[in-house]
């Protein structure tokens, strides 16, 4: 899948300025002296004065630039000191910083995929996207020395060679964009298994969840999906599969059969491969088996999610064998569950 970093350090992004507006011709623009930042400038701006950081850069898109006026800019107001916001604390392992999609085009179309928290952050088989006409600053600190992914695209250039990307990281721009203790490495093979791959982020589970604020849940039996940081109200369908199961096909099938229906508009559904410990006598873990976890939430008590889970179970009963599905069960936060057959 593609995972796209949401924040940017673009000049035109008004949320990057302390006054909540892009500075205009009467303003004094101040970048904090010690903030190491790479700022992307997409268009032309008038400034009264701009103070750059001691170490930092402005990347100028074609047509972008700065000019000064002889008098006041009548459209700008009295003029003020406008400061660029600090972006030091934005962490790679914060799930809220990422959007997921099946194709790059889906980002433009706003077709985002819901994932459990661990998979909201780029998985080892993912292609990481930083928006083409933008710059950013991301803190990669983690307990691991590297963050392996398949590819990273920055400023419109896609890197899938380990050495080329490591060279990019050593450039001035690379060092301003990526800071922190772990090195992002590209060239990890994509997911070659049609039934899907384990994300690989369970090793970072604590770090990921340390950034997440869980909402209080109001359902009878909140569920704890694997890879998620919070209890949820909704339903989980667990699928055992065999040869012939294709995760991408199955994700699309659920979308076409159910998610496009108006009654399911508020549904968020994430499909992932997880490794569940098999427990001997229910206590001692003795092996792990991959299975498919379908997490369904609806932002409310979970009734709608349960209805969808029932629909999915029905579909599996009729078409499971064609889809490579051998067994399935569901649990809902209402307390209902399928008969474990």
């Amino acid at each position: 899948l593609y995972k796209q970093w949401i924040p940017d350090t673009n000049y035109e992004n008004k949320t990057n300025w302390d006054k909540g507006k892009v500075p205009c011709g009467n303003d004094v623009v101040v970048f904090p002296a010690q903030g190491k930042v790479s700022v992307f400038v997409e268009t032309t701006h008038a400034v009264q004065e701009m103070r750059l950081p001691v170490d930092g850069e402005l990347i100028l898109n074609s047509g972008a630039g700065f000019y000064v006026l002889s008098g006041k800019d009548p459209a700008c107001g009295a003029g003020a000191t406008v400061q660029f916001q600090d972006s030091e604390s934005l962490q790679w392992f914060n799930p809220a910083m990422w959007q997921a999609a099946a194709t790059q085009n889906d980002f433009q179309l706003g077709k985002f995929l819901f994932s459990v928290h661990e998979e909201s952050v780029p998985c080892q088989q993912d292609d990481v996207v930083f928006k083409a006409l933008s710059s950013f600053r991301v803190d990669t600190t983690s307990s691991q020395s590297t963050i392996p992914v398949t590819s990273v695209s920055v400023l419109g250039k896609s890197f899938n060679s380990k050495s080329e990307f490591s060279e990019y990281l050593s450039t001035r721009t690379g060092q301003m964009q990526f800071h922190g203790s772990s090195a992002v490495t590209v060239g990890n093979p994509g997911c070659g298994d049609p039934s899907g791959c384990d994300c690989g982020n369970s090793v970072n589970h604590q770090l990921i969840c340390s950034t997440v604020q869980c909402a209080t849940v109001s359902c009878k039996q909140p569920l704890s999906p694997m890879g998620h940081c919070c209890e949820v109200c909704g339903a989980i369908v667990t699928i055992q599969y065999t040869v012939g199961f294709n995760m991408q096909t199955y994700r699309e099938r659920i979308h076409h059969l159910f998610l496009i229906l108006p009654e399911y508009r508020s549904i968020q559904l994430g499909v992932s491969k997880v490794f569940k410990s098999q427990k001997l006598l229910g206590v001692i873990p003795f092996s792990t088996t991959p299975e498919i976890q379908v997490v369904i939430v609806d932002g409310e008590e979970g009734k709608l999610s349960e209805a969808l889970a029932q629909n999915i179970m029905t579909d599996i009963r009729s078409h499971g064998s064609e889809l490579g599905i051998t067994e399935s069960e569901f649990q809902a936060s209402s307390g209902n569950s399928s008969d474990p057959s």
Partner: protein
Amino acid sequence: ELKEITPINQPRMLADDGHLIFTTGDDKDIRFQPSVSGRVKVGDEDLSQLLIQIKTNKEDIDKIKADGGAIPPEISNHLNQLDTQVSTV
């Protein structure tokens, strides 16, 4: 996919340890375009004027190399003296 974007080739204005640096990517220029009445100045110096001066200097030098510069007064004096001596022999 992404089509028209030239990757990582944009010019930059950057600060490096307080130095102000203007850079460009491969094959890309930095151009100063003074207008008829506006000047590009480095400190108090008018860059265009000085660049014209470079060429004037070169032309002057070429002329001196070809034809010699002024005649040093010692030479003139020496020649005049010799003239006098020769004419009075």
